[in-house]
C-alpha cells in the first residue's frame, strides 16, 4: 500500500512539475490530465470511490477536454514573450520553499496527534448521495444554480459581439 502511495505520489508530483514547467500549453494540459488521474487514484486509495470516479469523469474528462478545446481553438502553443527573468522565478521558488518550510511542519504537528478514527468511511455513491440529498440538499441546489449561472455567463462572455 505504502509503495503504491509513493509510486502514485511520484507520478503526481512529476506531472505537476510538468504542468508548471512546460513551455507548451498543450503539454501542460496533458501533464495536468496525468496529475488529475493520479489524484483520482489517491482518492480511491482513501476509499473515496465516488469522488475518484467523478474526478476522472468531470475533471480529467470534461474540464480538461474543455481546456484542450480552447487551446486548439485559439491555437496557442508557445508563450510568445520572452521567458520571465531568473529573478522572478527565483523569488517565486523561494516563496514556495518558504511556504513549504512553514506549512509542512505545521501539518505534521497539527495532525499527527489526531488518532485515526475507528470508522473507516466509505465514500461510496450511496453514502455520498445520501448526505447530498439530505443534509446538504440546500447547498446542492445552490450548486446547481451556480452551474446554471456559469453556463449563462460563459455563453454571454464567449459569444461574438454584434455591433449595430
Amino acid at each position: 500500500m505504502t509503495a503504491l502511495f509513493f509510486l502514485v505520489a511520484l507520478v503526481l508530483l512529476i506531472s505537476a512539475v510538468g504542468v508548471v514547467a512546460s513551455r507548451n500549453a498543450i503539454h501542460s494540459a496533458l501533464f495536468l490530465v496525468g496529475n488529475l488521474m493520479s489524484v483520482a487514484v489517491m482518492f480511491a486509495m482513501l476509499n473515496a470511490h465516488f469522488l475518484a470516479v467523478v474526478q476522472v469523469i468531470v475533471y480529467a474528462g470534461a474540464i480538461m477536454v474543455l481546456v484542450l478545446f480552447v487551446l486548439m481553438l485559439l491555437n496557442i502553443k508557445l508563450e510568445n514573450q520572452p521567458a520571465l527573468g531568473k529573478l522572478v522565478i527565483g523569488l517565486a521558488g523561494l516563496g514556495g520553499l518558504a511556504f513549504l518550510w512553514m506549512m509542512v511542519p505545521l501539518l505534521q504537528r497539527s495532525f499527527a496527534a489526531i488518532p485515526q478514527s475507528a470508522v473507516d468511511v466509505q465514500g461510496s455513491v450511496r453514502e455520498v448521495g445520501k448526505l447530498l440529498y439530505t443534509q446538504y440538499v440546500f447547498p446542492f441546489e445552490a450548486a446547481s444554480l451556480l452551474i446554471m449561472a456559469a453556463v449563462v455567463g460563459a455563453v454571454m462572455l464567449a459569444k461574438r459581439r454584434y455591433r449595430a
Partner: protein
Amino acid sequence: MEQNGVTALGYIPLFPLIGSVLAFIIGRSKRDAAGWIATLASAMAFAVVVALVMAMPEEAEYYYRAFTWFSVGGFTLDFAFRFDHLTAVMCLVVTGIGSLIHLYSVAYMAEDEGRHRFFAYLNLFMFSMLLLVLGANLLVLFVGWEGVGLCSYLLIGFWFKNLSYAGAGRKAFVVNRIGDAGFLFGMFMLYRQFDTLDFAELAQAISVNASPELLPLYFVVALCLFVGATGKSAQIPLFVWLPDAMAGPTPVSALIHAATMVTAGVYMMARLNFLFDLAPQAQAIVAIVAVFTAMVAALTALTQNDIKKVLAYSTVSQLGFMFMAAGAGVYWVAVFHLVTHAFFKACLFLGAGSVIHGCHHEQDMRHMGGLWSKMPITAATYGISTLAIAGIYPLSGYFSKHAILAALEGGHNPALEGLLELLVPMASVTAFLTAFYMTRSFAMTFLGSYRGHAHPHESPLRMTAPLIVLAGLALVGGLWLGGTLPHYLAPVLGSPAEHGHESIIEGLMHSWIGIAGIGVGLLCYTSLSQIPATIYRVIGPLSTLSLNKFYFDELYAAVVVKPLEAIARVLFRVVDQGMIDGAVNGTAAVVDVSGEVARSTQTGQVRHYAFFMFVAALLMLFLFVFAGRV
C-alpha cells in the same frame, strides 16, 4: 431746569437733511435749483435756532428725545438732542455762517457740472454738524462727528477726476478715523464705568464719583477723547490731513475746514468740561500739544505760496490757540475764539475763494498781487479779517486771543505749573507769526503789482455779500461777544473770573504783538522784498523745513503707511498664501503623493496581484506559525 419734548430741536437737523435729499434728487434734472434748495434749508435751520435762542429763558435747556435708538441688555440709548447755551452758540455759528457760505456757493459753484452733489453734501454736512452739537449723549455726538468726517471726505474729493484730490479725501477720512478710534475708546471706558453716555447723566455721575481712585480713569478717558479731537481738529499728531483738504472747493474749506467741523474737538472738550476738569494732567497735555501745534503750523504757514494752504495752516494754528484755552481750563475763551475765528477765517477763505474765482482758478500767490484795485470789496474784507486774526484792537481776534493768553498765564491748571514759562512765550511768538504770515499773504495777494496772466475781476454780489457780513462780524464780534459770551455760557461752563474793562489805549498797547507782526510783514513784503529772501538764505535748512511742512507727511509715510502696506503684502503673500494655504495645499499634496505611490502598485498585471496575494498569505502563515513564539 430742563424743558422736555421741544420738538423744534428735531427740525434743526431735519431741514438740512431734507434739503440734502431734495437738492440731490431735484438737482439731478435742475442743477440750478439745488443751490437754492440747500441755502433755503440752511436758512430755515438758522431761523429755528434763532427763534429758540430768543425764546430760551436763562438757566434753561431744551431736551428732545426723537426716539429710542437702541436698548439692549440694560444699555438704553436715546436719539436725543439737548439745547443749552453752549449748543445755542454752536448752532448759531453753524447755521448762520453755514447759510452765508451756502449763499456764496450758489455763485461760486454756478459753473460746476456736479453742483447738485455739492449742495447735497453741503447740506448733509450741516445735518451732521448739527447732530454733533445738538446730541444729548456722546453717541449722537459721535454720529455727527463721523458724519462730518464723511462729508468732509466727499467734499474734499468733490473733483474726483483728479486722483490726488480723491486721495486727499481718503487721507482726511482715515486720519479722522484714527482719532475716532481714540474717541471710541473714551466712550467704551465711560460706558464701562458709568453705564451711560448721556452728558447730563455723566456729569451727574462724575460729580458724585470724584474719588481719587477714579482719577486715573478720567485721565485716560480725557486723553482718548483728546486723541479724537486731534483728528477732527487737526492737532499734532493728526493734523496732516487739513492742508491736503484744501483740494476741496473753497466754500467747503471755509465752512468745514475753518469755521465749523474742525472746531468740533473744541466743542467736545467744552461739552465734557466736567470730565476734563478732573484730569488736569490731560488738560496739560492738551495745552502743550496745542502750543506746539500752533507754533509748528504758524512756522509752516510762513513759507507757503498757495493762498489756501496759508489759510489752512493758519487754521491749524488758530485751533491750537483754542485748545490752549481749553487746556488751561477756561472753556468759554476757547468757545469765544472758536466763534471769532469762525467769523474771520470764514471771511478769509471766502475772500481767497473770491480771489481764486476772480483769477480764474489761480491759487499761487506768486502769480497774484495788486488785486486791491481790481477787487476792492474782497480786498477790504480780507484786510479786515487779517487785522482781526492778527489780534488788533478792537477787532474780534484781539479779544479772543488776548483772553487765551491771559487764560494760559492765569494758571488755572495746577498741572501746567512750571511749564508756563515756556508755553506763554511760545504762544506769544506764534501770535506774532500769525500776524506776520497773514500780512504776507495779504501783501502778496492784494498789494504791489499784478504778476499773473489772467484778467482778475471782482466777484458778484452774491459772493461779496457774505464777505461783507462776515467781515462786519469779524470787526465788531469780539467787542460784542467779549462781554456777553462768558455770562451767556456760564450755566454750562461755569462763571468766569471778572476782569475789568480796558480802555482803547490799553487795548492798542496789548495788541503790540499783532502790530509788530503786521509791521514787519508789510516791511518785508512791500518795500523791502529782499529781506525775506536774505532771511531764507541765512536760515536755509529751517526754511526748507518750513517749506516742506516739517516733513510730517513723509515721516508718517515712512513710519506708518509704508511699513503697514509692506506688512499687509507680507501677510497676504507669506502668511496667507504661503503658510496657511501652504499647509492646506500641503496636506492635499501629501494625500496626492501617497495616492500616487499606492497607484504605482496597481500595475494591472494579474500576476503581480497574485504575487502580492501569495506574499500576504505567506505573512499570515508566518504569523500563524510563529506568533506565539516571537
